[in-house]
């Protein structure tokens, strides 16, 4: 579990907009309804959900400690709490917790502490392949335009881009390739479809 990492990721930016790219759909921008809480103000519990935000993504490590609290359970069931996985969370070690969470989480996210740390690509792939999670998986943290394509293919379908990124350039990324040479969450490799022709 990633207590050490939490203290390092105290700066998770606020987002006005989220880039959604639903499987089988088209990329689009939508207002962000989720506060990403880094768990650092643990003493006060969940942050105050003001400023128009109704919902909060809590660190998975925090979830593991607090999920049995009735307040947390009821807020989660009402659709107001989701979890985010730190890059060094070993999600396979917490399979039971995740299986339980799957029933109630409206959203999960995986964090990129820096854009060139690819661990969350594997986290997303495991959430889709192993846990068969069909809900939204959001990429958060140091999410840059040039990671979108890879993220979309491993299993992310929403992206909280770093605030300095240009959304018009971002929206175009998903059209760059019409073929692939390995299977992904979104589609099978192009060679297979060609072979069946």
């Amino acid at each position, binding site marked *: 579990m990633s207590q050490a990492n939490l203290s390092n990721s105290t700066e998770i930016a606020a987002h006005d907009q989220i880039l959604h790219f639903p499987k089988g759909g088209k990329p689009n921008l939508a207002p962000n309804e989720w506060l990403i809480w880094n768990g650092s103000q643990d003493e006060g519990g969940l942050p105050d959900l003001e400023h128009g935000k109704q919902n909060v993504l809590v660190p998975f490590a925090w979830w593991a400690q607090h999920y049995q609290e009735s307040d947390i359970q009821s807020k989660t069931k009402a659709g107001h709490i989701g979890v985010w996985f730190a890059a060094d969370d070993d999600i396979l070690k917490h399979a039971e917790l995740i299986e339980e969470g799957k029933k109630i989480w409206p959203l999960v996210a995986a964090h990129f502490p820096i854009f060139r740390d690819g661990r969350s690509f594997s986290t997303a792939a*495991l959430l889709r392949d192993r846990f068969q999670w069909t809900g939204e998986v959001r990429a958060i943290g140091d999410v840059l335009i040039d*990671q979108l394509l890879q993220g979309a*293919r*491993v299993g992310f379908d929403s992206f909280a881009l770093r605030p300095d990124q240009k959304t018009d*350039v971002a929206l175009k990324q998903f059209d760059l390739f019409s073929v692939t040479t390995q299977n992904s969450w979104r589609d099978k490799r192009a060679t*297979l479809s060609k072979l069946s022709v």
Partner: protein
Amino acid sequence: MYKYDHIDQTLVDQRVAQFRDQVARRLDGSLAEEEFRPLRLQNGLYHQRHAYMLRVAIPYGLFNSNQLRAMALIAKKYDRGYGHFTTRQNIQYNWVTLEDTPDILAELAKVEMHAIQTSGNCIRNITSDAFAGVAGDEYVDPRPICELLRQWSTLHPEFAHLPRKFKFAINGAKEDRTILLCHDVGIELKKNTNGELIADIYAGGGMGRTPILGSLIKTGLPWQLLPSYLTALLRVYNRFGRRDNLYKARIKILVKALSPEEFARQVEGEWLFNKDSDVNFTQAEWDRVAKHFTKPAYLSLAKLSDQQVINTASEAERASFARWLERNVKPHQVPGYASVILSLKPHGSVAPGDATTAQMLAIADLADQYSFGELRATHEQNLVLADVEQSKLHELWQEAKKQKVALPNIGLLTDIIACPGGDFCSLANAKSLPIAKAIQERFDDLDYLFDLGDISLNISGCINSCGHHHVGNIGVLGVDKDGEEWYQITLGGEQGNDAAIGKVIGPSFYADEIPDVITNVINTYVNHRNEDESFIDAYRRIGVAPFKEAAYKNAKKKEKAEIAGDAS
């Protein structure tokens, strides 16, 4: 050789467009250098000491004459008229500009080439036996697997930002010519008793700062399951490889920390969940790819004896022609054919592995004329014409001599493997090329080199060991001490089936001492060797002590001289 279908071509063309956009964003300032860096590296573009360097992929070292002509013309148009063949079977250009790079990639795409994943923390260009498909000792032609894995690894989304670079080598011959055990993953292809293609997997090998030979972690893996197994392996590495310390981020450190057994167990655990998935290869995919690696239109020829081949030369030429045959010509699977190594190590050369535009164009013609238009790059930085009729060897030799690529020094002391070193590389602590040149100048006598026989001498300009110094019988490593360039000597390294990591013999030397040190080491071998005993065998028999003593003989003298000088 493999020919792109519309999927491969589309992918490469779209990759050029993607990179063109990334370069444009870098140039207009909307993409910061720090963020552009991994993107350009995944397209083979380094920023070197003096300029940008572009490393172009030659998948498993195989290419054709048209591709070589394109490489030659790129060298002329965008660089300084030469290219450098590397120990990873790639070619690199040392003097390109950022602005030109998208155009270079577009020109490469026209001849089914690219620079994808030749650098960066991703799965690198896959290497294999330069004699794949023709080697006399081959039991499985590795090329279809190489190509299938090239496709599988190309722009793999999950493994685009691994903890560090990741290198595959694939071998299917009795003799390992790939340094299989010095790779993050080595795949040894075999046939089982039912004649089915299987693979043994070695993991956690590598050179660099912490040289380690790979460990066998899986045997008898059916070839179809390679993608699921390798996905599991890379997933374990991606999740648990160290990211806190650049020098401890390679998979070898993870395998060592966990133990090969525990690493294998974790991979196996992960693999259970996807081993039956459609990520795996199918027979249809094999058939699609393997048809490109069928045998060329060999003629039905009689096998010529060595003497018959020698007799195709005039009497005056026979001695030197025989030498070339002995060192640069290798046996072939098909009667009447041979494989020829063109030496890119002429004595006094600028850099081992360099070829000029004129040479590349001429060699492309030789490939067309003598070898079905195909070529291979070796990890020793030479080129191979794999399918030459024995009766035409003499004619080819004469042509190769005109291009200065016929020096019969393959496998000899002057067939030096060297990285570009401090003359080009911004990572280097010391120069490599002047050391290589000085050694070649010292050992310029071909008769003597022949008498010494097989000796590998590898030079790296820094601990990253692109010159593979760890596996040289004699290794030279450039090190920096207080801003000065020094050179450390290792002995006893070996590639091939008895792969071994060389041992450091002691304190390092000044650059100008190296030719003397090498001479002393070689003299020690000559003085101690039994009849027909190779350098490495002699070293293993008598141990490091006599070599070490000889190596430091002059250093001591020098020290004394300096002391004497001080006193006067």
